[in-house]
């Protein structure tokens, strides 16, 4: 696998250096820009899999930068980093053309999981798969049927959506906040690890009667669904 290319546009040199180092350690090729104009020029040349944009930048702010890229029909996935973490800040960020929004300070594992999810996203306009397959686990998005090794598994509607999202990101770490955002459509802090209980219920249904577990807990990060047989 050729390494993914990431562009970090961030004016805080310490934060940018830390992020670039961490991303390189997990195998990405990283470029950096310290202000909006340089960042825009680099992003415009294209070739990046994900652009990480700080919201407040000198010369051109993050939201305008993304808006300018989108106006140029450059749809490189953009992750907005911001010290403004309230709900309406996020809405503004996504409305400006950002694909995901992460409030500072963030855990690197959270950022990593989100970058992965953005980078491996199917290209825009590609037909959506109607059946997800991971190992012997199959999920039919139209008939809402889930089978493992040919055996049908009955799921509650929410469990179905949880599994659907996990399978969509099979092989990648999915964090608890990502699950809360995509499965429940909430962006708040649920105070308790409510998500864990939902995941363990789902796990009981898809893994209990089978030898190889598929739904794994990634310590300090979240969950990952992968083919246990391999």
């Amino acid at each position, binding site marked *: 696998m050729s390494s993914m290319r990431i562009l970090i546009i961030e004016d805080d040199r310490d934060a940018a250096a830390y992020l670039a180092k961490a991303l390189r350690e997990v195998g990405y090729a990283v470029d950096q820009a310290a202000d909006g104009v340089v960042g825009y020029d680099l992003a415009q040349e294209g070739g990046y899999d994900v652009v990480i944009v700080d919201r407040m930048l000198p010369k051109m702010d993050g939201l305008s930068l993304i808006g300018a890229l989108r106006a140029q029909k450059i749809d490189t996935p953009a992750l907005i980093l911001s010290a403004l973490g309230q709900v*309406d800040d996020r809405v503004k960020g996504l409305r400006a053309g950002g694909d995901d929004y992460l409030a500072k300070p963030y855990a690197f594992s959270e950022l990593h999981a989100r970058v992965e999810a953005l980078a491996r996203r199917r290209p825009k306009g590609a037909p959506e798969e109607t059946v997800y397959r991971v190992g012997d686990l199959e999920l039919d998005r139209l008939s809402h049927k889930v089978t493992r090794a040919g055996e049908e598994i009955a799921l509650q509607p929410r469990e179905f959506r949880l599994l659907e999202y996990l399978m969509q990101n099979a092989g990648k770490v999915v964090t608890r906040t990502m699950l809360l955002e995509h499965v429940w459509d909430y962006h708040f802090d649920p105070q308790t690890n409510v998500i864990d209980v939902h995941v363990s219920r789902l796990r009981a249904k898809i893994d209990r009667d089978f030898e190889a577990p598929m739904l794994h807990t990634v310590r300090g990060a979240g969950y990952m669904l992968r083919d246990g047989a391999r």
Partner: protein
Amino acid sequence: MTALAKLFRATAFKLTLVILGLSAVGAGLVLGAVAWQVVQLVDGETRQTIEAEAKGLSEQYEAGGIRRLGNVIEARSRRPGSSLYLLTNAAGEPLAGNVAQLPQGVLDQAGFVDTTYQTVDEYQSGYQNARHALARIFVLPSGFRLLVGRDLAERGRIGAVMVHAMAVSLIFFAALAALGALFVARRVLRRIDAMAGTARAIMAGDLKRRLPVSGADDELDRLARGLNEMLARIGELMAGMREVSDNIAHDLRTPLTRLRNHAEEALRQSDNPAAARAELERTIEESDDLIKIFDALLMIARAEAGADRAGMCAFDVGETVASVAELYEPLAEEQGVALKVEAAPGLAIVGNRELIGQAIANLIDNAVKYGVVEAEASGALAPPTEIAVNARGDGKTVTIEVADRGPGIPAADRARAIERFVRLESARSRPGSGLGLSLAAAVARMHGGAVRLEDNAPGLKVAVTLPTGAAAPPTAPSPPPIEAGA
């Protein structure tokens, strides 16, 4: 500015003067009209008298000719009174009467004439006194002329009386105007000065002061009351802020101290990598908790400022309640609590779905954390408890209730329980920031609603009331959103 200059510059003073000036002009007009009417009346009567006398004299003339007329006139002229007579020959030389001097040409005029004259007596004694008269001149067939008239001194006197009355009343008006303006202006100025003084005292830091209200229920009282309500609200906010900063100082220092301790411990354990790593992990956990507290505080502040109004839209609260309850249902079950949800569908309100979802989540989270009767030390299982979550609407408001069967909160503590960072003694031992209820209350308040704590006998019932329109009155001083239910 001297006190007097201040008085003259007062709006009340100027207004009073203008009003009194206008009334003076009005009164002058009325008096003038009356005077004119009176003069008209007097003139009319004079004319009638003249006509009557002329008629009598013409009868005398018809009966006895010019000689008899002359005699009658001579006789009447000697009577006292204001009647005037003059008989002249065709050349204008006087034959009889009590009128001596007349201006040139008067005798040639027909009809009523307003003229000056002199009496015969005065003319003969050389006394110059121009009198006024209303007279009528008749030309007799033989060229003789007869003047019959009345002295107008009486009319002049009435006019003088009128002018005098006008002058006197104007002086009175002016005096009254000045006094009234001074009185009103001083009265208003005193109250305004008192208000300004209070305002200055408040600015100087005496935040407890309130503007004086006289009790007259006039516009100044209304103004003072409105400003006092504003001051009360500002005071409330200030007190809230002061309390928050005190609490932040206390409740953030504690986790910050722990954070620092863990970091120091990690440094000390440098020759024991496993222990150092564990300490570092705890450092990160501790800082994540701090960030959560920080976010919750920001969210409360924003909700209280109403800054999130832009994020409002119409949505179904019943659906939100159901989905949040569903989020917590497995957790509750794991704790041995049955979560019973009753949410009527179609409870549409205009509001911020995220914030209301967060508020409901906080309430359910609290109920799961604190609303459970703890198992006895013996290890025996506590009796199964339940948490009832329901949402219903009456068209104008939507009420969301979360009721548990836990130990509840004593009535005396309920108001305090909603305050930021307040964790009642019974809850100190369990995790939590103490911001859950405050956030729910702030969200309700931002939507123009309220949070109420009630007795669930046994247990605690938290009721959130939200208006369906959710347009919080932006100006009206909202009543304290927290009420401790009985």
